[in-house]
């Protein structure tokens, strides 16, 4: 039978080391240092930057989350390290530790603390979504967090919301500007300090419109108008990538956009409208979504009709075709 030795209990009236206070002091110093470093040193470099209102909002959210989670992480590590150093098993010490029957105060602090943190983040997130008009996320066809005021799809003046339709297709994004005659281009230009409403859709499979530096990410689904808002605050270039695996050249489905000053944007829009006039008149009327399986009868010429080509749906082969999936 193994010998059982008893750890020497503190003598009556002799206070042991105050582990809780030690751990707290170590933790509070480290947490303070970590939070200051995160907020002031790391924070300004966190993604996705501050190019737009939504990007800035996202950076603030990430910064806040990091500041709140660092102390929690450090508490775990400090406690773990302290236990390893102070409560490690000494040579010859084979005694059991003291029985723990629960500690109501600690449990209460834990439950209340975590509840407060989670609820505070929920409130912060909701307010943040509200004030930043969705924080750049796709909100579907009827967005809740929309900027005040009506949005015209016929004309744009500085101060009003610019509409940009994002049309995803394998493997390219094109952008339609309904307030400038509905021209469609592969260039994405945005004016500085103006609200932008992205109307994101697809005409084939599911894509994802992800303008990284703008802090905008919205699914591009066929037959759906997914609306996202942002307000570019700084001029410069940004990258647009497809964020949904969409086929062979998904990895090459990206392009670059620009935020420019208002006067420069107006000049570009007017020039592009003129240069694309010959193709704009062949485009379907501007709509929130497009159904490529239906070509309007008046647009389908006699030869096309005779050949039975009244659709751009791609299903030209008969169902009994051996490659029909």
């Amino acid at each position, binding site marked *: 039978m193994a010998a059982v030795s008893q750890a020497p209990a503190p003598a009556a009236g002799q206070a042991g080391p105050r582990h809780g206070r030690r751990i707290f002091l170590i933790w509070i110093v480290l947490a303070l240092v970590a939070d200051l470093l995160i907020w002031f040193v790391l924070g300004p470099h966190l993604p996705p930057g501050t190019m737009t209102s939504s990007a800035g909002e996202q950076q603030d959210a990430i910064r806040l989350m990091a500041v709140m989670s660092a102390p929690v992480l450090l508490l775990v590590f400090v406690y773990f390290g302290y236990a390893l150093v102070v409560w490690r098993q000494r040579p010859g010490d084979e005694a059991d530790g003291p029985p723990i029957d629960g500690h109501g105060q600690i449990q209460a602090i834990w439950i209340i603390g975590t509840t407060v943190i989670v609820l505070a983040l929920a409130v912060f997130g909701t307010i943040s979504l509200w004030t930043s008009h969705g924080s750049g996320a796709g909100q579907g066809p009827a967005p809740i967090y929309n900027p005040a005021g009506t949005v015209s799809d016929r004309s744009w003046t500085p101060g009003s919301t610019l509409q940009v339709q994002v*049309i995803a*297709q*394998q*493997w*390219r994004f*094109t952008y339609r500007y309904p307030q400038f005659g509905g021209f*469609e281009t*592969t260039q994405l230009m945005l004016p500085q300090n103006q609200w932008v409403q992205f109307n994101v859709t697809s*005409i*084939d*499979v599911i894509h994802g419109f992800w303008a990284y530096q703008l802090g905008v990410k919205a699914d591009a689904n*066929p037959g759906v108008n997914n609306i996202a808002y942002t307000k570019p605050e700084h001029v410069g270039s940004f990258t647009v990538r497809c964020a949904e695996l969409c*086929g*062979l*050249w998904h990895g*090459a489905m990206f392009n670059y956009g620009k935020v420019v000053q208002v006067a420069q944007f107006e000049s570009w829009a007017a020039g592009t409208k003129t240069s*694309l006039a*010959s*193709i704009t008149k*062949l*485009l*379907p009327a501007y709509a929130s979504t497009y159904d*490529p399986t239906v*070509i309007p009868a008046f*647009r*389908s*010429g006699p*030869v*096309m009709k*005779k*050949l039975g*080509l009244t*659709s*751009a*749906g*791609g*299903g*030209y*082969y008969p169902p009994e*075709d*051996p*490659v*029909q*999936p």
Partner: protein
Amino acid sequence: MSLPVRVGTLLVAFLAVVGGAIFVVIHFFLAGPAVIDYTAGAASGPGRQVNVVMQEDAQNTVTNKPDWVSYFIQDPKTKQWVHTTLFRVPAGARVNVTILGYDGCTPLRNTVWGKVTGTIGNTELVDGKRVSVLDAWQTCSVGHTFSIPGIGLNAPMGSPTTVAENNNLCSQSPCTSGPHATMQFSFIAPTTPGSYFWQCRVPCGGGFLTGFGGPMQTIGYMTGQMEVAS
């Protein structure tokens, strides 16, 4: 059975299995379409140019996917048509492209791709006529497109324009006769060496989801790469 016979049999069986595995890997996984090289013999310097000749067919009868539409490229040395969509051009060279459109007309999914962009002058010749836009919905004028997104190139491919021609298309690939349209355009190859993918924008993968499956997703049919060599 004696020991030498058993060892020999085992050795032969082992080699057969290894050989079979190597054959499968090489034949099915490593083999790909040929790269047609237009750099050989091309003059150097800023004035250099190459002539790329291709054709697109309504089918291809040279593979086990006969109902898949497909491009072919002409080898500049042998003048033979090769079932591939990979070609190599010199960096910075003027690339003169001739494409024979043997396939019939089909509507573009997005009519914006009816505009010619990225070519010299943003135009192309269709059967000798210079155009900057083709209306794929109103007239029977577009069969496919040849688009290199990385350099902003988009050239809609013309097609036979009548019902009779479209009902009497060439049925043996590569086509050497039959109704077709001839497209000619030029562009300047990028000065940065690398691979630039190209694709057709007409959903011509019939029988597949949204028409963009099958040949549209397979190199050697309706998509490929332009390699720019230094």
